[in-house]
């Protein structure tokens, strides 16, 4: 078995893990990050894309709100190209209590959140499709953030400081020696090879899967309730501002414009297993009804895709959390679980709870805790260090991501290049370059990098093209090409069949025609 030595092993390649790797690398530690799948393939890649202003929490969870207020501003500075400055609205729909708006404003003042009430007419001018029956409206500095891009930027930043990012490496066991965790045994999920990591410190940033890792250290009494949330991406931007219902946090209370789509979210349902989170018909219906409340005729608009994510809602029996009935009542603030104090196990810390907006603070807290345990004085600098932007920065003048950027880029190469994914405007050279850079032959990995196949046709036209190109440039042999194509079809199907109605059903049937009637993928060798 091959062996790696490192100062810090970070378990989990979501937003938290990537943030931790970046933070630790910036403080001069040698870092190895391991994820059982691709980066941001768990909760981070399955959220609605909201960069919280904090407005969602001002009444119910002021601590979380204050964290959001601060971190929202920090992320805008350090990863501006991952953020679109959409602004946000809280609106009182006809079904909501207008009095909540007063508590909301009070909460904003108490948490330094710049929330302001505006005329309903003004809100409707900003967002003409909004329910004209809304009774109050407030502006907040919500934004949308591309989680994949953020995680990759952090991981790339860490790697530029020497960190080794091991995707598709699952932790199969932790090494515990005496009263400390000393590393882990990893298995490469693609090749089956095992790898031994000797780590000076192990940071558990595996979110909804954290309890499984903790258990490997022989520690009991820690649980994670996977809080399932479903989200539906609508075909285009029904709104261009984040729209929240001005109520206590509830289901289906937010519509986020991100990239070319708008995402309605979300539910919060206790799940048994973070890897088993099927979408049910009732949940889809509920989301659509909730969408209708914010934007009339929402049900007539085209739904592209539905998916579920799991929130890492932490339960610590020793901390007296007990059994929460509603997962929404479990705190959304994060905490570092100190396994020395709790379990007499050293060189091992677990991050509990949290949310993407506060990823940087979470990383700071856990790396600070590690430094304390190690007796190192290495201050955190992530709040003031911009994360290096990727080579494909889409920033506009003020540094933020701009929706029109791909269209602008395409316009510049219109006469020179083939367009492979027409929905998300991905040219051939970017596809080939991404294949090389990511070193992957998996179309689904490429999808997450480029949004390949994530537009209206859900791969109907581009999957065949991408497969042909991958095969043609010799990155896939025939066998791999066939299984990659079939695998991608199945992956796409998973996210569309529960929302197949209206336009998207027509699309799915046209795609069937292509894959079954024209190409006959089913009987492909």
């Amino acid at each position: 078995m091959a062996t790696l030595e490192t100062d810090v092993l970070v378990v989990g390649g979501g937003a938290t893990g990537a943030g931790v790797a970046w933070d630790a690398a910036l403080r001069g530690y040698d870092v190895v990050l391991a994820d059982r799948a691709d980066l941001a393939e768990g909760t981070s890649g399955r959220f609605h894309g909201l960069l919280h202003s904090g407005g969602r929490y001002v009444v119910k969870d002021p601590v979380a709100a204050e964290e959001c207020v601060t971190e929202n501003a920090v992320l805008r500075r350090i990863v501006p190209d991952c953020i679109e400055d959409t602004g946000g609205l809280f609106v009182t729909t006809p079904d909501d209590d207008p009095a909540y708006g007063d508590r909301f404003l009070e909460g904003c003042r108490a948490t330094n959140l710049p929330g302001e009430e505006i005329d309903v007419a003004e809100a409707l001018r900003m967002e003409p499709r909004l329910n004209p029956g809304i009774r109050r409206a407030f502006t907040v500095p919500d934004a949308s953030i591309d989680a994949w891009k953020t995680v990759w930027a952090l991981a790339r930043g860490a790697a530029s400081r020497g960190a080794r990012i091991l995707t598709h490496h699952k932790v199969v066991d932790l090494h515990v020696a005496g009263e400390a965790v000393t590393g882990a045994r990893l298995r490469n999920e693609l090749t089956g090879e095992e790898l031994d990591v000797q780590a000076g410190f192990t940071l558990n940033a595996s979110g909804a899967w954290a309890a499984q890792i903790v258990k490997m250290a022989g520690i009991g009494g820690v649980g994670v309730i996977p809080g399932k949330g479903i989200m539906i991406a609508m075909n285009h931007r029904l709104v261009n501002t984040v729209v929240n219902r001005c109520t206590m946090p509830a289901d289906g209370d937010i519509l986020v414009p991100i990239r070319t789509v708008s995402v309605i979210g979300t539910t919060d349902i206790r799940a048994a297993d973070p890897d088993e989170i099927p979408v049910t018909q009732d949940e889809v219906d509920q989301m659509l009804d909730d969408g209708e409340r914010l934007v009339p005729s929402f049900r007539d608009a085209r739904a592209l895709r539905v998916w579920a994510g799991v929130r890492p809602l932490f339960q610590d029996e020793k901390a007296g959390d007990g059994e929460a009935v509603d997962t929404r009542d479990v705190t959304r603030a994060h905490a570092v679980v100190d396994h020395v104090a709790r379990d007499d196990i050293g060189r091992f810390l677990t991050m509990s709870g949290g949310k993407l907006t506060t990823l940087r603070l979470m990383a700071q807290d856990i790396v600070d805790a590690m430094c304390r345990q190690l007796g190192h004085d290495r201050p955190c600098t992530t709040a003031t260090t911009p994360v290096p932007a990727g080579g494909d920065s889409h920033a506009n003048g003020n540094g933020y991501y701009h929706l029109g950027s791909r269209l602008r880029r395409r316009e510049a190469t219109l006469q020179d290049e083939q367009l492979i994914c027409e929905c998300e405007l991905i040219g051939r050279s970017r596809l080939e370059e991404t294949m090389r850079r990511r070193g992957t032959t998996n179309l689904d990995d490429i999808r997450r990098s480029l949004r390949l196949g994530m537009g209206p046709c859900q791969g109907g036209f581009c999957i065949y093209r991408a497969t042909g190109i991958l095969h043609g440039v010799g990155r896939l042999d025939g066998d791999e090409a066939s299984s990659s194509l079939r695998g991608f079809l199945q992956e796409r199907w998973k996210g569309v069949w529960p929302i197949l109605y209206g336009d998207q059903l027509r699309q799915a049937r046209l795609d069937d025609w292509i894959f079954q009637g024209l190409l006959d993928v089913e009987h492909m060798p």
Partner: protein
Amino acid sequence: MSHHDAIVVGVGLAGLTAAARLAEGGARVLVLAKGVGATHLGPCTIDVIGYAPERVERPGEALAGLGDGHPYAAVGRDGVQAALDWFKGVMAPYPYVGGLEENLLLPTAVGALKPSAAVPGTMAAGDLREGGEVCVVGFRALKDFHATLLADNLARAGIPARAVELDLVPEGRADVNSLGFARAFDAPAFRSEVAAHLTARLGRDERLAFPAVLGIAGPTAAWSELRDRLARPVFEVPTLPPSVPGMRVFAILRERLRRAGARVILNAVVHDAERSGGRVTGVQARVGLRDVRHGADWVVLATGGFASGGLELDSRWRAREVALGLPVSGAPGPGEERFRAGYFDDHPMGRAGVRVGRDLRPEGLDNVLVAGATLAGAQPWREKSGDGISLSTGHRAAELILGQRAAAPPTEPAKAEA
């Protein structure tokens, strides 16, 4: 409002066939369609039945085994044969090969061998039932056809195959679709250039596969020239849409319709029917911001299925037929399972459509006939029966109407009984 002997709704293969046959049979025909139909998208191979569920070798024989609920039950083998005969006659400028006796096995662009009953002559040499050496010619500028993938998969299926990729770029375009290549192949100079690039590179026994882009102005000119110049069988393999063979077929059927004197109105979205007893006396069509009524003795509904928008499922999971409001059968109701989790599973929604009797009429309507993908009971793309159903039911609908017209001159619509 106008009044016609027959209104055909839809201009896909089913609608065009029904309309052309009706018009040449002497009926005054009005064709109403939302837009251009699916001929532009599909390969235009007449797949009658390819899987049931095992691969079918003799489609004519397999028809009987499909059951009463299948659209072919209303057509019968003779009906399918008659439709094919008619179609092959109409397609004289772009001759078709094959029939109901045996399915041909033609490679698709991913190298699957797909069973088809009748195919354009330009594709026929791709019948690989007996094997054979294949050289697949691709164009790097054509993103909708990948020669190496096709060749590699053929080789994996035991058919000696290799790919040759050419760097010719028609019209100086970096991004050119099948139609752009087809226009290029219309030019003799381009054909010569392609032939020149290939001449020295071919094995003795290799037949040549090209993407189905060999010309659009003359449907067979480029194909036959390449075959002759390179002295070997040449065949086309359908690409992703747009479909050049489909456009050839569309042009021929459209011209046939024009000559037969049918009126065609695009952008007329039929959304309601005017009924009197068991008859539809007219249809309502939305045209721009207006609503227009058209009267007719007969209506052929050929609007397609869920893919074309002839059938719709709304977000409350209610299925409807959009033009005449006919009941949709086989669609699971709200709360019932519509689709399964595996893409290639047998989906409960798969066979939903408008159910008809043996005369293609939906229950309770005397003068409406349904043709094509609107019909319930088939899984056209799974079982490879799409264009076969469209052609044969469209043809059958026209024959039934012409037969009735011959038997009894059209009468005034019966008054609804009190």
